């Protein structure tokens, strides 16, 4: 019997050969190293030559598909209302497609509009835009102006709700709680209750928050789907935090009413991923490969279930992230960190990006990503720091890896 040193597909190099055959390796040690060196050649797209220019493309081939929306008109809207409608429309498209181009179009419209004639509605919209681009300070500034000066209740409520969410995402729970409280004074109802429940859940009281909001939703006669969906989405978040199967049901309800809600879709896909329901993950993320968060979750599910398409998607993501790094965009930190951790198996690099991401957003999935990266990289300082942070707010989450030790 000869001992074959198979360098491809084996977990380790030497455990294939029983120890007694090891002396036979004596002269081969060099070749083992060299054999490994030949394994898996894959060029970095940043350094690689660009794809060739193809001149003989077929006339009938469809080479690009444009989005269903009409192209943006050349001229600037003449009234604030027209501008606001257009911006709102663009932000809404950015939200449902995940495509940042629409945010760029919207920002360009703002840049061409005189700053002095921004009314309250436009300020709220600009703040929403800033928040999407992670410019939290600017968003906060615009919203504060609206809260201070606006006599229009609708705009104040809008500003308050946006601010409450911004602070929650940032992990500034005292501020968030304050805004939820103010929101309840201005506009009592399911949305304000959801706001408070979310903050209460993140600060040590998920069980009571869940029960209260669930009862409130059941007893509510609110006909507006907005408020019900809002509460349903929040219940999903809190249920997931408690590790309850009900999370999936809440999220599915929201998703069936609003299939283009990428946030909820990503939450649900992540939930299934954690439970090893890879087929559900692949189904949920089907045709959403352009959205990084969903594409990364899909790639992890494919990777773990040895899906035949895993290599193609991983390669595509690698190229996309390397273009994003070239561009220097920070919007991709979370997804990139997750990709590094769960697909590439590079915990140190994942930790770096997860840490940067956590500086701007501290949702449970961000915190979990940072905890997992720190654990995988064996970084005790970060773990200790996070534990202290979680303790400070009494935040617990069934999705966090063991943080007690």
């Amino acid at each position, binding site marked *: 019997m000869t001992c074959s040193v198979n360098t491809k597909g084996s977990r380790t190099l030497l455990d294939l050969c029983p120890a007694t055959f090891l002396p036979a390796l004596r002269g081969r040690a060099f070749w083992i190293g060299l054999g490994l060196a030949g394994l898996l050649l894959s060029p970095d797209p940043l350094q690689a030559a660009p794809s060739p220019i193809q001149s003989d493309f077929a006339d009938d081939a469809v080479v690009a598909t444009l989005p269903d929306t009409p192209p943006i008109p050349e001229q600037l809207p003449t009234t604030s209302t027209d501008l606001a409608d257009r911006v709102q429309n663009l932000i809404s498209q950015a939200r449902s497609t995940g495509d940042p181009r629409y945010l760029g179009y919207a920002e360009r419209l703002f840049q061409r509009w005189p700053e002095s004639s921004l009314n309250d509605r436009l300020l709220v919209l600009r703040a929403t835009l800033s928040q999407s681009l992670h410019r939290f300070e600017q968003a906060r500034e615009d919203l504060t102006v609206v809260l201070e000066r606006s006599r229009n209740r609708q705009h104040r409520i809008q500003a308050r709700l946006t601010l409450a969410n911004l602070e929650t995402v940032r992990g500034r729970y005292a501020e968030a709680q304050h805004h939820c409280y103010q929101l309840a004074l201005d506009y009592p109802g399911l949305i304000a209750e959801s706001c408070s429940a979310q903050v209460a859940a993140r600060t040590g009281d998920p069980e009571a928050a869940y029960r209260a909001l669930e009862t409130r939703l059941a007893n509510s006669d609110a006909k507006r789907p907005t408020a019900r969906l809002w509460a349903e989405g929040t219940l999903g978040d809190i249920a997931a935090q408690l590790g309850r199967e009900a999370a999936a049901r809440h999220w599915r309800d929201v998703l069936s009413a609003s299939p283009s809600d990428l946030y909820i879709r990503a939450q649900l896909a992540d939930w299934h991923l954690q439970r090893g329901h890879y087929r559900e993950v692949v189904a949920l993320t089907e045709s959403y490969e352009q959205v990084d968060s969903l594409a990364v979750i899909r790639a992890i599910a494919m990777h773990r279930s040895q899906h035949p398409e895993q290599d193609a998607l991983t390669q595509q993501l690698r190229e996309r992230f390397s273009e994003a790094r070239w561009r220097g965009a920070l919007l991709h930190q979370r997804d990139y960190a997750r990709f590094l951790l769960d697909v590439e198996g590079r915990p140190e690099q994942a930790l770096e990006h997860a840490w940067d991401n956590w500086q*701007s957003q501290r949702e449970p999935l961000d915190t979990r990503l940072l905890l997992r990266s720190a654990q995988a990289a064996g970084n005790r300082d970060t773990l200790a720091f996070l534990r202290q942070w979680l303790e400070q707010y009494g935040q617990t989450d069934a999705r966090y890896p063991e943080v007690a030790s």
Partner: protein
Amino acid sequence: MTGLRLWAPWLLLLAFLSQSGTALAHKASDSFIYLDSDAGELRIDVALRDLALLVPLDQNQDRQITGREVRNQRPIITRTVENGLELSAESGVCRLQGLEWGLSRHSDGRYAAARYRIVCPDGDDPGQLQYSLLFDQDSLHRGLVRITSDSGSTLAVLSPDRNTLPLTSGSSRPLETFAAFLVEGVVHLLIGLDHILFLLVLVLPVSLMAPETGSDTIRSSIVRLAGIVTAFTVAHSITLALAALNLVTLPIAWVETVIALSIAVAAVNVIWPVLGRKTWKLAFAFGLIHGFGFASVLGDLTSGVSDMAVALAGFNLGVELGQLGLLVLGFPVLCLFSRWRLYQRAIVPAILLAVVGTSLVWAAERAAFI
């Protein structure tokens, strides 16, 4: 109540927006500009999707762009793209002479691509590149530039705020890059416990020989030591260069696992020389894999660094300096200890056992990522 109903849709939008406010990420709008300064050529790729904002590509309004539609609009496409791009030299604006035209592919689909020869007045080299395509439509649009020359490649990004790029080659930069990477190399060796442990187990047997072999022990020890260190250095320099220049890339989880295993194997080999007593061969073989480990660190440091060759040289020299410093300080100490029996009989085996244990734990942890 009617007032509330009226603004419900507006609330719907913003409510969900704020909830999902930061979850967005998608390939943004980028054009790719490749400048080959040696050949005096430029290539620009613009996404068809973006081009459709400027050029009526979709003539039949069916939201589908066919090859024919692109071909029909070729004159307007080239004019538009060329208007968004300006190369100039001291002597004046340079002319772009078309060499190739067609479609190309990037991570998010098809792009219109064109390659040009750059012709500047008086045969000068272009001194700056200005780019303004699509900035008036999309504030988040960027021109991603890669400048290639014989000394390496540089990456740059052009944005509405910074739409001009000087092309005159920097003079003092390489030295700075070299020095910075030299330091990184030293630091990485000193904080990278796995490379230190590997060196330790390679060097231990040499230090033990000293009391056994009598008279010109120091001389022969140093020769052996030099052999081992040279073999390790040559091997990891080879693979570090191969990986850093992107000629060979290995999955990092594999590399790190094998590095951990290599330490265990080398430690076992001290007591039970299954891989032979020629330690330099072992140092060479496993040095190859350690080179990939160094390369992964270097790769993380160099995204955006232009002079890859300079960075590589600095980093590699830094690693060698760190290694040499460690040996100069550590080896005499080990030799001194080796005159002590307890050290030979108990401490060395204990060290080796601890090293095997540690590295196997690492290997198991790292293998989990394969």
